[in-house]
């Protein structure tokens, strides 16, 4: 794929992940061995660690690249850069201006750093209370 600015053209100035403009390949991996999230959490966490070691090889081979937010790992490291690239700062300005109360929230979305969902089993589902994130 090669969705450059020239090809996309209209509307031009938008928040499409800038990594897409320079890419020629988008690679996903899927793990058919992931245990059910309804079963023991430890099994999921352990399998995820194995899976993550594989996707880390792709991350290491593509520094400064990115991931497609809609089909990515909700635990993507450095998601601000990965999902939004150098557009993040401007998007955060817009978010702060239009939603200063933080009314709208979803994981790994612009400005979501201040809150997190606390799940009882530690799995990255959204089954839990939305709490203020611990400051780092």
């Amino acid at each position, binding site marked *: 794929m090669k969705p450059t600015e020239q090809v996309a053209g209209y509307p031009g100035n938008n928040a499409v992940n800038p990594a897409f403009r320079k890419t*020629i*390949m988008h690679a996903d991996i899927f793990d058919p061995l992931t245990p059910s999230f309804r079963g023991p959490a430890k099994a999921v966490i352990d399998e995820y660690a194995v899976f993550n070691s594989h996707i880390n090889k792709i991350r290491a081979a593509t520094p400064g690249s990115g991931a497609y937010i809609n089909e990515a790992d909700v635990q993507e490291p450095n998601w601000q850069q990965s999902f939004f690239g150098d557009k993040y700062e401007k998007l955060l300005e817009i978010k702060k201006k239009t939603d200063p109360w933080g009314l709208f929230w979803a994981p790994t979305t612009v400005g979501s750093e201040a809150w997190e969902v606390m799940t009882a089993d530690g799995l990255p589902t959204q089954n839990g209370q939305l709490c203020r994130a611990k400051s780092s």
Partner: protein
Amino acid sequence: MTSAIVKAYPYLEVAESTVTFVGGNITVPNVVTNPSSSALGSNTSVPMPVVVQDLENFWRGVNLVYAFGRDMVDGGGTTYSYVSTTGNNTFSFTTTLDIPRISKPDIFKFVQPLVDSLNGIGIAVNNTTPTSSTR
């Protein structure tokens, strides 16, 4: 709703070829279907795909297709490939090769160098009969 069409373009004819092969110690090859091609209504399931016994060579073949992706996107096209595990250290590989505004004979010619390079490392795939999109 996960997506919305903001601007629609005039109808675009797209020609498509596919490349499929399986790897590892396989005695009875499974049918391999390319999910994206099926989703678009093409029947490109391959009941008896070429078997590449040597896994090093299988991955070499996969890399050749990935490298040809550069030629494809430079030619205005896209590829959509799948590598899957099929158990017991066996794997399947299938890809569609799509180019808009090109005839079926022309995409056949375009893809020939990839087929030649795969044949050159002993992966005896044929250049498949192209299909094209229908309204």
